[in-house]
């Protein structure tokens, strides 16, 4: 996939890093920032994250329609999974059709832990996320050696195998087979993050939890992407042989990326279960696997928030076109158009235009001034 879309223009503020250039460009460069996480960039990102986090908490006040609030909430949850898929695709060049395994797996985990085993919902949620991530490590350890189409097929196989397991009538006692499981809160503390089950089920009270998770996930992915680990991943994606000949083993970093993306999907799955209070094999199905991948690609995964935007678009479209059944049609068309014409996805395309516009304006201003 094209990942040479220009990254957001950055400043290099460490004086030791930027040698003097003769063309007068005021320290702004396109291209990657130096290795490692510089203090100032990180603090700035944290500040931005806090601002966005707080601002986002007011969304329920702005969106009065409960329909659109529902779209936003569901979109954010799917967006967390999509961000994980996108992270893996961008940093490792691996396209996965199997993240439903972790999303659905942890969703089922929450349901089983609360309904069948009587755990408190918070415990169930935490354990389910851990379990989903461990599952990602387990599956990843096998599939990460293969790349490209083989990887796609392997993730698909694992994901659909799990789906098949969830529909088996012989496991009906555990999984409920096609009927699924309701999530029943029990135990002493029947709240998650201070929210009762009813509150979790309502979009505007569920929103803060989902939003906080989203911001933290995106921030976390950003930090990882900019860290040395992220640079290693990028090197491996770009020229695996050279990375190995430079002394880097490729297995562990890739596995790490896979685990991180599985972690994101697990969080999303838990949030879904808490909100919907009901889990069925659909959370593991091929439809969702395909849809979440399409959402990720249409949104564009060269930028972290691209998949989130894609997810929001998808949920919106699902509401809009779901009844007519033409959702798939538009999704297919969007996918074709984006893959052929917009390699950075919708978000990548937009940011690219903005960057170019800014550059042109800057040049214009400079020309007019001199």
């Amino acid at each position: 996939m094209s990942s040479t879309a220009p990254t957001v223009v950055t400043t290099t503020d460490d004086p030791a890093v930027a040698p003097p250039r003769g063309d007068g460009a005021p320290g702004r460069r396109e291209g990657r920032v130096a290795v490692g996480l510089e203090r100032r960039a990180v603090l700035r990102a944290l500040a931005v994250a806090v601002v966005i986090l707080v601002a986002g908490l007011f969304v329920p006040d702005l969106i009065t329609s409960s329909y659109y609030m529902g779209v936003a909430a569901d979109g954010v949850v799917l967006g967390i999974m999509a961000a994980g898929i996108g992270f893996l695709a961008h940093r490792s060049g691996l396209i996965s059709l199997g993240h439903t395994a972790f999303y659905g797996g942890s969703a089922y985990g929450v349901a089983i832990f609360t309904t069948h085993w009587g755990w408190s919902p918070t415990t169930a949620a935490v354990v389910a996320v851990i379990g989903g991530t461990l599952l990602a490590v387990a599956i990843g350890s096998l599939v990460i050696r293969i790349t490209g189409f083989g990887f796609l097929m392997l993730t698909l196989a694992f994901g659909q195998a799990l789906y098949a397991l969830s529909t088996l009538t012989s496991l009906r006692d555990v999984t409920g087979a096609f009927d699924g499981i309701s999530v029943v809160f029990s135990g002493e503390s029947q709240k998650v993050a201070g929210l009762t089950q009813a509150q979790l089920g309502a979009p505007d009270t569920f929103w803060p939890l989902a939003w906080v998770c989203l911001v933290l996930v995106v921030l976390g992915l950003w930090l990882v992407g900019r860290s040395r680990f992220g640079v290693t991943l990028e090197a491996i994606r770009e020229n695996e042989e050279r990375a190995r000949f430079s002394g880097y083993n490729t297995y562990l970093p890739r596995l790490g990326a896979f685990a991180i993306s599985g972690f994101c999907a697990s969080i999303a799955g838990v949030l879904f279960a808490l909100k919907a209070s009901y889990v069925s094999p659909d959370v593991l199905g091929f439809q969702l696997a395909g849809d979440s991948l399409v959402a990720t690609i249409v949104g564009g995964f060269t930028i972290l928030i691209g998949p989130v935007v894609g997810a929001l678009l998808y949920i919106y479209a699902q509401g809009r076109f779901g009844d007519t059944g033409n959702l798939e049609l538009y999704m297919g068309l969007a996918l074709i158009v984006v893959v052929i014409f917009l390699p950075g996805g919708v978000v990548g395309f937009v940011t690219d235009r903005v960057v170019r516009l800014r550059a042109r304006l800057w040049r214009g201003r400079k020309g007019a001034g001199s």
Partner: protein
Amino acid sequence: MNFAQVLNGLALGALLMILSSGLALIYGLRGVMNFSHGALYMLGAYLAYEATSSGLSFWLALILAPLGLAVVGAMLELGFFRNLQQRSHIETGLVTFGIALVLNRLIIIVWGDDTHPVSAPKAIDGTTSVFGTAYPTYRLLIIGAAAVMAVALVLWLRNSRVGLHIRAASHDTETSGILGINVDRVSLIVVCLGAALAGLAGVLAAPYFSVSPGMGQSILITVLIVVVVGGIGSVGGAMIAALLLGLVQIMGNVWLPSVAVLVPYALLIAVLLWRPTGIAGKRV
């Protein structure tokens, strides 16, 4: 376990064989896994339904539908594959995935989303006695048709000049081009043929499975598994894997229904992890 189950397995395997041969051909030549193959199959089935419900003979549909699908294949090749040659295989694969979504939906828009049975031609709508078991004659047709197609395809690939070109171009596109083989023309033939085979499988499947809106999607995963297990790009390998999977799936359903549904996935995982080139693959 009775013989009828084995024959059912063969019938399913036969359909998979026809489908996967087409997919393997396209993959072998273009390096692209055509995710719209299931939709092409579905189109073939629905065309058969359209034909029979309009009063045309099933036999006519058996000839016309593959031809129609060949035209669709030509559109795929000329419209997409040819122009996407510079892109990565995954990207082109994603485009075919999008095409599948669009095509699936278009079919439902035209024909509605109910399941429709398709009756087999009167002549063979009965049962035949096979080794003492009464077995639907129509399914024997499926098995027979697949066998004929398999033999014909393999012979054609091995012995004809076009077949030679196809094998050469599948092996090494660049060198073949230098040697004077018109790779674009060969591509067109292969994609049309692959689509036609998918259509043929669809027509044959219609009386057996009926036409339903989910049929394209449900068979896609199975046929992908068959092609990968059989050896990516290897038509012969795909054929063997198809029969194997058909038999295993049906018979597994009889013996261990819980496990049977997992077998294709287990097989795929095992093959990709331990022998990435598949049973008979020329390359990964």
